[in-house]
């Protein structure tokens, strides 16, 4: 191998090759950190709620008829809506609830085990009619589902309320024992009878309580009734207008807003989508630009060394030997860049973690990026190096 001559040649053109070394180093640093950011966002975005997100639509009524001021009127309207929605072709299940997944929040409160040591646990809390589990597509783990008779519409009632809780909340509060038949106390010391547990449940929240939920039996109507409706797979388009039409037929003293859970989820992950698109684009472009840089510099050094190449060919070097020389030269430069780049990648990562976005670099991404840049170096060198192999030995005999 021609290590000796290559090193000596590199020494004579320090700046030119240093440019490539620095470019490769920065490229490696940027590519690895960009992949880390993409991975970070993707993990958040692909985390499953456990619900049938694609087939659920959120319906919100905005009442304006004066009758809605009156609680019994509102409850009657909710029950009429539930019947009308359930009877709509394409509808699988419906619930009247203030739960809405994928907004990064919701409503929460603190509970303690009724017979425990009084330690309180923060959890998400929602009201809903019995259809909630069927609507979300979540299954009952133990006990029973909510029933219509569990709902108590009297706002001044002091009687215990009825609820089902997520399995993760059961584990947290009851320490591995069954919650069914036990009681919870909320912050007002109101007693809650737990009649069942369900799984899975995941709804990202501002506080780390994503997996904890209590579903109370109840109606939600004060600021306009809200519903989650699950439709048969693939029938969202036809069913949504039908639901609106039937609800207005039932009572047209209100306006109706509808949003699919997919839309709400897309909206929640706006930043993640921007990060993913932008960083993918940056990776492609930066590899392309650095590749072009290598092509440019190699092409230049090929042109500059026409005479030497001709001389070597005249002295018996094969085309393969010339090609090998340039590939080897690039490989040495690339490796120098990659060694510097690994250091730069970890350096940039530390800077980003402390000052901005926070995921640690995964060594596998570094390894993948190193392989990518090796390939890039070979491809980018091959283009001008192939030209070098075509120089005729005759060049050597000509004057400058």
């Amino acid at each position, binding site marked *: 191998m021609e290590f000796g001559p290559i090193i000596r040649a590199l020494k004579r053109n320090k700046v030119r090759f240093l440019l490539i070394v620095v470019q490769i180093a920065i490229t490696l640093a940027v590519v690895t950190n960009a992949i880390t950011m993409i991975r970070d966002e993707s993990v958040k975005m692909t985390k499953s709620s456990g619900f049938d997100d694609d087939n659920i639509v959120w319906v919100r009524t*905005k009442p*304006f008829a004066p009758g809605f001021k009156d609680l019994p009127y509102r409850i009657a309207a909710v029950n009429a809506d539930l019947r009308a929605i359930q009877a709509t072709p394409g509808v699988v299940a419906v619930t009247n609830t203030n739960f809405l997944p994928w907004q990064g929040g919701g409503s929460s409160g*603190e509970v303690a085990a009724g017979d425990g040591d009084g330690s309180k646990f923060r959890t998400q809390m929602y009201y809903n009619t019995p259809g909630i589990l069927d609507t979300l597509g979540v299954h009952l783990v133990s006990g029973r589902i909510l029933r219509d008779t569990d709902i108590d519409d009297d706002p*001044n009632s002091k009687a215990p309320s009825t609820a089902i809780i997520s399995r993760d909340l059961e584990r947290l509060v009851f320490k591995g024992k069954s919650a069914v038949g036990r009681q919870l106390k909320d912050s007002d010391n109101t007693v809650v009878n737990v009649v069942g547990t369900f799984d899975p449940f995941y709804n990202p929240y501002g506080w780390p309580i994503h997996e904890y939920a209590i579903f109370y039996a109840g109606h939600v109507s004060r600021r306009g009734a809200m519903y989650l409706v699950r439709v048969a797979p693939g029938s969202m388009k036809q069913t949504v207008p039908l639901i609106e039409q039937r609800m207005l037929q039932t009572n047209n003293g209100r306006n109706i807003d509808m949003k699919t859970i997919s839309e709400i989820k897309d909206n929640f992950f706006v930043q993640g989508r*921007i990060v993913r698109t932008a960083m993918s684009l940056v990776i492609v472009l*930066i590899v392309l630009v650095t590749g072009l840089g290598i092509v440019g510099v190699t092409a230049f050094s090929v042109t500059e060394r026409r005479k030497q190449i001709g001389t070597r060919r005249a002295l018996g070097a094969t085309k393969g030997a010339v090609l090998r020389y340039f590939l080897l030269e690039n490989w040495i430069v690339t490796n120098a860049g990659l060694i510097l780049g690994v250091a730069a990648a970890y350096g940039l990562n530390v800077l980003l973690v402390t000052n901005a976005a926070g995921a640690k670099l995964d060594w596998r991404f570094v390894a993948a990026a190193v392989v990518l840049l090796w390939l890039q170096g070979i491809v980018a060198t091959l283009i001008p190096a192939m030209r070098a192999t075509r120089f005729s030995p005759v060049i050597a005999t000509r004057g400058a």
Partner: protein
Amino acid sequence: MLLYNVRIAIKSLRRNPVLTAVIIGGIALGICASTTFTTVRHMFARDPLPGKSSNLFYVRMDNWDPHTPYPSNQNTTGPTIPPQISYRDAMALMRSNLPVRQTAAFTAMMTVYPDPRVARPSTEGVRLCSSDFFTMFDVPFAYGGPWDKRADAKAEQVVVIDDAMNQKLFGGANSVGKRVRIEDREFTVVGVLKPWRPFIRMYDLNGNFIAQPEPVYLPFSLTPGMQIRTSGNSDGWKSAGTTFEDFLNSDVDWVQLWVELRSPAEAEQYHRFVDGYVLEEKKHGRFERPLMNRVTSLRDLMGEFGVITPQVTAMAAISILFLAICALNLTGLLLGKFLARAPEVSVRRALGATRINVFLQHITECELVGLAGGALGMLLSIGAMKLIGKFISATSVIALDSEMILAALFLSLGAGLLAGLYPAWRICSVQPAVQLKV
């Protein structure tokens, strides 16, 4: 001389259009990426109310559960303190005459009843605030203006509507003095806003702060009479009772209080006033947690509420590195291009051109490339920003402001200069004698 250099540079660039396109394209990509992402960051980071944001202060008080602190939010960096205050505390603090201006505020959903011939009734976002709100946050009026202090004091039925609402209700005409029904009462329009879409809804950083401002504004003092409940966040740790009266007197936090103070000294004084109030309330069994009140300027609040997400900063940093790569790349390409021209330059040198002449001529060429790439990059980034704006929200507009155009211009000239220095120096130090030997 400059003109001559520019002419030569253009000639040189036209000689090899492919190489020129690659060079300019590379710089354009770098400028596009770096301007786009630094502008996006700038939109979040820039002062939403220049000259004012250090005089507007947001008040927070720790009235939380004596046994457990307010749960900390993973997105914010500030103290673990409820982000809003209770109605009763807001009303009590508003009695202070220390602030130049002040407003308690919250957002609600209320039903607006247009003339039935015009449109169906609809539920609209309403901001409950005092007359000072409009002055404090530089809200622009097309017709009329804010209601007066008397309307605040007497809870008069007056309303300010935004441009879009005025279009919908009154066809865009000057509607000051006209009447509109909201819920079960008649309101008189006193002001109509100009189209107003701040990128950050700086007056309410709770919840979705890139949302559009509310279309309807009513006096805060209507709250008890009309029993208006917030549609924004409300945080509580103990029972809020059953009646509306109970709710207003509870420790549930759902009101935002802004005060305008003239100086840090006044802010200090106001902070002492809040502390004094809380110490007094402690005697009555409220505020059982350790004394913690915050009077935070809008500027600092934006930091605490995490308006700039770390991802936005990281993308800006990475896009600057991308520009650095493009500049390095340019250096490599120019080096090749210039050195290939050594014989030609040698002739010029032999005919009397000085090194400085040669150097300046090549730097001119670099700057020309930098400017062309910069202009192209800025055009590209305008497109990219439109796309990102649409991504963020249907009505968000991300646009280059003069500050960012200057920054982009500076970046492209800087990139051209930095990239060109070494190649230009190499070419001007070529030995003519070596090149001219036959």
